[in-house]
């Protein structure tokens, strides 16, 4: 696998959406290619950052009360 092919699979690789065979090929490429590895790490950092920044919000307790009241009359 060359750099262009590896980068084409970048997000699918990070999202763990590749078949085991292609995933192995990408991983092998990354072991041998420092520039691609850096780019993959950068994108990986971005996705982790995104999830960490956005997952914290929970539904307000008041909303849950409203729904329980509406559904079950409590």
């Amino acid at each position: 696998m060359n750099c262009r092919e590896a980068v084409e699979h970048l997000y699918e690789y990070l999202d763990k959406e590749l078949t085991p065979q292609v995933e192995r090929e990408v991983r092998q490429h990354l072991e041998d290619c420092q520039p691609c590895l850096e780019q993959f790490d950068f994108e990986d950092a971005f996705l982790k950052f995104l999830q960490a920044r956005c997952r914290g919000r929970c539904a307000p307790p008041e909303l849950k009360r409203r729904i329980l009241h509406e559904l079950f009359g409590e």
Partner: protein
Amino acid sequence: MTEPTTPGTPTPVDDRRESFEREALVHLDTLYRVALRLTGNAADADDLVQETMLKAYRAWHQYQQGTNAKGWLLTILRHAFINEYRRRTRHPETVDVDAIEPFAVFEDLQEEDPQGRFFDQIVDDEVLRAIDELPEQFREAIVLSDVEGMSYEEVARILSVPIGTVKSRLFRARRLLQAKLYDYAVGMGYIKGSRA
């Protein structure tokens, strides 16, 4: 003749309620986060989630227990949003999102910040604001995949599009979001950047 109900014996209503609480209500936080990003404000998000839960409870007999309740609920939520909220909260898309060719931030930062450390300086509200500025089709792909961690297949099912479309939207959405955050970080002086 029906059996008299003795105290302590679960009735069908109790069963329905119990299974709904166990399989549907546990996804309240997910529904709320998605609703917040779709509607863009807390009051509409509250109403949208409440309406989704009501519709889901009414249709609970159609849901096959033990299957993907989260996906099922999000599909209901999205339909409710499109039918009732989008018109008044946000305008339907006028841009052709598939024509957007996003800029690759990494190429610009290869020298200065190849590990993307600048991301850590950006506060939550700024990230959410940047997501909210994305075209709706990008926003929903990002929220379902990156925030809620759903698979391409689940996202494709909820959005009623082929998996290839999910991949392409996610790619463009992520790059566009990066570019927005990059511009913000340059503006704030977190990084120098080289984009004029």
